């Protein structure tokens, strides 16, 4: 598929939301206000683990200006049922407890009560007047500790699902899962080289720049309106309906512009509280988290302890691969250990694989999705071990991966057999990139790693409306976090044969368009894109019918070309083509408004593969790592708007580099987070990194009319290992534990020095 076959797809027009964003006109959640609104604030647990003996809110309620107080008592108990939350699964019984603690607080920052008052200051003062009696319990932060017999139990009745043999006693291990293919013992018996290593990764926050915020207004007749920052307003509606026992049709959620989400805004925190407070107070209630609240009580992606064992032949062919992952779920079960297990070896065609995962609770905030949930963690361990193999076999790391690469027909260890995929193409593109072909600069070393993500489809609805002048509104229901409005408009322009500028894509609230699953799983341009294409095709069908009516011919006698209805052939008759503007002008005479719509459950998401290359140097005295050059190559299907695809690759790479080098949660002895802010939770700043180079490899997804694959998640998968591999090659010291922060690397280098001198 060459780009030249398209007029709009593959071009780089300005995004429809761009002007509003650079002028400050765009409205984010905290910019929404209503007359008479109250300010809502949350009282949060100072303890990592404690039983709530009593909560006395009477003094707070008595404070002038306080209009409502809520605690867990204001939320009905929920059944033990699993529902999807973005790419993760959550249990409603736990969701209600995460939103508002019931029997126990399970992490520092856990919500215990909320107030609504006329001013911010009064609300703050009211929080201080709420008396909570706690019985402080021993806490546990680390996964390894949490798994030990005798560890403090978060949930006294939690039995390990899938344990072998079946669990007889409660523990912090919520689940054991297993994936296998071939005969792992036979594989290792055959192997000529076996490498086995342990790794750890730290939890990391999604780090979206916009804190959670919500404004809710409940009317006396039972209607509820919500404005909030979310990746899925239909999910906000769904969660609030369940958590508060309100019918979905009574709740109307409008998403604001979103200042980043990366998976972390696929769950609810403030919305149910704001609604309940508004119902009790009879006034709108606005709530905004501070950055500290965001760190203490939302997100993060989990940390994990991993073991990887790989067996290979001397020619580089991997014959056996094992991986064990114990993953933090936070305070409630439900880490992304499943996808971590599935993605671990998905890049490769290996005969014998055995992967085991454990979902482990501890006294940390409940984890949420973060770009390719789980995958970067297992990729760090697996891709580091493959790099060790390359070093031991003295093979080029890309050649070694090419030798084992998954291709069409490869059966994965989680059961799926791949269709058309681009792993080999991406490896070759990396190998032939300007970066890889340039010799490494003196003082620098080069690291390589690969990564995989499934991408998803799911439910989408869209509509296309023609205005009186022939311009078109494309309506869909996914918050735009990566430039999706531009991509949807480009596909609509391509289908309709009219200019991109004649199309205005909008994101409708939950009452104004059919259901859409969250913006997540890299699904919007793919799945909602398909809904848009189908809605435009429905619109074209309508337009052709109008032309047929005008000409008094059969609808089959009309074709649509370059934005105009034309007779299909000379046998139909001789008619001047009718433009969309002409058809719009005469719509009243041909059947009224001209609209198209579509809704579907989209399957056939094309998986994506990425290969990253990094050149970096390590200062031996300080342990500071400086990235000199970085390239991300990825199979992107078709790049609908290449700039925004490149942006996804660059952003994912930068987040992965931060994960590798500096980001971590630091807990003190009491289980309190010591670094709940961007000063000491170190995401990379612009001056830390060079421009990230990108190589877009276009292997179209055959199930999508324009070949779209999701692109937003794959790029965060390879960087952790790419950086660690380069550090190992730069220093001869391999870092098995993230982050590779200056104090840690410096200590490791110093520890290795006498050893290396002796060698």
């Amino acid at each position, binding site marked *: 598929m060459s780009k030249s076959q398209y007029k709009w797809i593959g071009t780089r027009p300005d995004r429809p939301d761009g002007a509003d964003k650079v002028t400050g006109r765009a409205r984010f959640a905290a910019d929404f206000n209503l007359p008479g609104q109250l300010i809502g604030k949350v009282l949060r647990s100072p303890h990592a683990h404690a039983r709530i003996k009593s909560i006395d809110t009477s003094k707070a309620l008595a404070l002038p200006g306080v209009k409502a107080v809520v605690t867990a008592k204001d939320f009905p108990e929920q059944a033990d049922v699993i529902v999807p939350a973005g790419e993760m699964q959550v249990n409603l019984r736990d969701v209600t407890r995460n939103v508002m603690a019931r029997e126990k607080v399970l992490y520092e920052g856990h919500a215990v009560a909320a107030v609504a008052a006329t001013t911010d200051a009064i609300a703050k003062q009211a929080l201080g007047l709420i008396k909570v009696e706690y019985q402080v319990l021993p806490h546990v932060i680390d996964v390894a500790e949490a798994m030990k017999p005798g560890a403090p139990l978060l949930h006294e009745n939690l039995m390990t699902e899938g344990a072998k043999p079946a669990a007889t006693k409660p523990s912090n291990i919520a689940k054991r899962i297993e994936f296998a293919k071939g005969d792992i013992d036979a594989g290792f018996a055959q192997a000529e080289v076996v490498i086995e290593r342990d790794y750890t990764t730290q939890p990391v926050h999604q780090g979206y720049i916009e804190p959670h915020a919500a404004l809710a207004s409940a009317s006396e007749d039972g209607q509820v309106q919500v404005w909030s920052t979310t990746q899925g307003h239909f999910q906000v509606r769904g969660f609030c309906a369940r958590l508060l026992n309100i019918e979905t049709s009574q709740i109307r959620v409008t998403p604001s512009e979103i200042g980043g989400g990366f998976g972390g805004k696929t769950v609810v925190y403030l919305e149910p509280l704001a609604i309940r407070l508004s119902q009790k107070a009879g006034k709108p209630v606005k709530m905004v988290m501070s950055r500290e609240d965001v760190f203490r009580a939302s997100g993060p992606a989990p940390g994990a302890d991993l073991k990887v064992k790989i067996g290979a032949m001397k020619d580089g062919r991997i014959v056996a691969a094992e991986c064990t992952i114990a993953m933090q779920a936070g305070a409630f079960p439900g880490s992304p250990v499943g996808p971590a297990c599935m993605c671990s070896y998905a890049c490769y065609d290996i005969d014998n694989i055995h992967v085991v995962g454990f979902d482990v609770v501890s006294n940390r905030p409940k984890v949420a999705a973060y770009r390719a949930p789980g995958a970067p963690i297992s990729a760090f361990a697996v891709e580091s071990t493959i790099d060790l193999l390359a070093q031991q076999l003295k093979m080029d790391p890309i050649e070694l991966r090419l030798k084992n690469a998954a291709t069409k027909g490869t059966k994965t260890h989680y059961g799926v057999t791949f269709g058309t995929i681009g792993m080999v193409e991406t490896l070759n593109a990396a190998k032939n990139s300007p970066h890889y072909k340039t010799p490494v600069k003196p003082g620098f070393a080069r690291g390589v790693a690969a990564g995989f993500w499934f991408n998803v489809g799911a439910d989408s609805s869209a509509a296309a409306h023609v205005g009186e002048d022939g311009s078109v509104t494309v309506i869909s229901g996914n918050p735009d976090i990566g430039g999706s409005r531009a991509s949807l408009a480009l596909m609509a322009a391509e289908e309709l044969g009219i200019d991109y500028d004649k199309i205005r894509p909008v994101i409708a609230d939950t009452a104004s368009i059919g259901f859409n699953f969250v913006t997540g799983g890299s699904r919007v341009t793919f799945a909602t894109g398909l809904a848009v294409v189908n809605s435009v095709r429905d619109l074209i069908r309508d337009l052709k019918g109008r032309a047929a009516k005008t000409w008094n011919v059969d609808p089959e006698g009309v074709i649509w070309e370059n934005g105009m209805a034309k007779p299909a052939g000379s046998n139909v008759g001789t008619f001047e083509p009718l433009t969309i503007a002409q058809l719009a002008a005469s719509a009243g005479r041909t059947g009224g408004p001209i609209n198209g719509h579509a809704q579907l459950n989209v399957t056939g998401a094309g998986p994506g593969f990425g290969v990253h290359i990094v050149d970096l140097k390590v200062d031996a005295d300080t342990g500071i790592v400086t990235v000199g050059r970085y390239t991300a190559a990825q199979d992107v299907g078709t790049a609908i708007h290449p700039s925004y695809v490149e942006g996804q690759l660059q952003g994912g790479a930068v987040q992965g580099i931060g994960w590798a080098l500096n980001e971590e949660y630091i807990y003190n002895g009491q289980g309190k987070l010591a670094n709940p802010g961007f000063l000491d939770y170190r995401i990379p700043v612009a*001056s830390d990194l060079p421009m990230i180079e990108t190589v877009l490899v276009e292997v179209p997804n055959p199930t999508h009319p324009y070949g779209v694959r999701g692109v937003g998640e794959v790029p965060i998968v390879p960087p952790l290992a790419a950086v660690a591999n380069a550090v190992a090659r730069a220093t001869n010291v391999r870092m098995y534990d993230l982050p590779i922060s200056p104090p840690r690397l410096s200590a490791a280098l110093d520890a290795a020095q006498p050893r290396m001198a002796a060698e």
Partner: protein
Amino acid sequence: MTDIQFKVAKTVREAASLMAAAKGKGRILAGGTDLLVQMKAGMVTPGTIIDVKKIPEMVGITETKGSYRIGAATPAAVIGEHKKLRKAWPGVVEAINLIGSTQVQGRASAGGNLCNASPAADSVPALVAAGAIVTIQGPKTRRQVPVEKFNAGPGKTTLKAGEIVVSLTLPARPKTSGDAYLRLIPRTEMDIAVVGVGVSLTMKGDTCVSARVGLGAVAPTVLLVEAAAKALTGSKLDAKALDDAANACSAACRPIDDKRGTIRYRTKIAGVLLRLATAIAADRAKGISRPAHSQQGH
């Protein structure tokens, strides 16, 4: 509800009187880049805020016979644009210009950096190395103290009730002198020093005839490391002198393990930065121009 009074002082005396009148609830507002952040976080709730940016004596730089007086509230960006000061005290200026970002530089002052009393304040080790003198105005009297004696601990100064800092004075020194400041931060900017080292030297040919070393972020206050200065003074800045001075810096460290660095790391880096900062200061003293290093490792 607590109301905050906002006052704009026109003279140093007026500012000091307002401070005295506020009975311990007064706060001077210079650039506000610490004060406003701390108020937002609920760490401080002043009764009266006294803006000193309209006091001529407190904003601006004057030179008298080679000695420079920097008004306590002078914005860092103004200091960075002062060519003569930059030439005379490149280490002090580079330290002040490391604070924050371009936006923060437009507001942040050296006086605020000092009075905020963070052990990791960037300008202070350079000011200590420079031998800067702090001029302090009370409701009635004025006094002066060496900068290394000014702070008492994290967030604590030795200012008495009603006292404010008016200016910082850098002494005149021989032409064959140079200074430098280096800090280590895990990132390239927008971070807090894990260790900061200021070195000021006067050279006679290849021999160092006098030296001062300031060391930040490794103890409750910024330290004047006399043992390091002693190791350098009289030497040709040879390997042994540098080893001794670096070891003296490491030995002077009384750091803590925290989210910003380990004891082991800070102690080591103090020595590493001493060597590098000494080399830059020596080159500058000899007239070999060296670009301002933002920090080690990049």
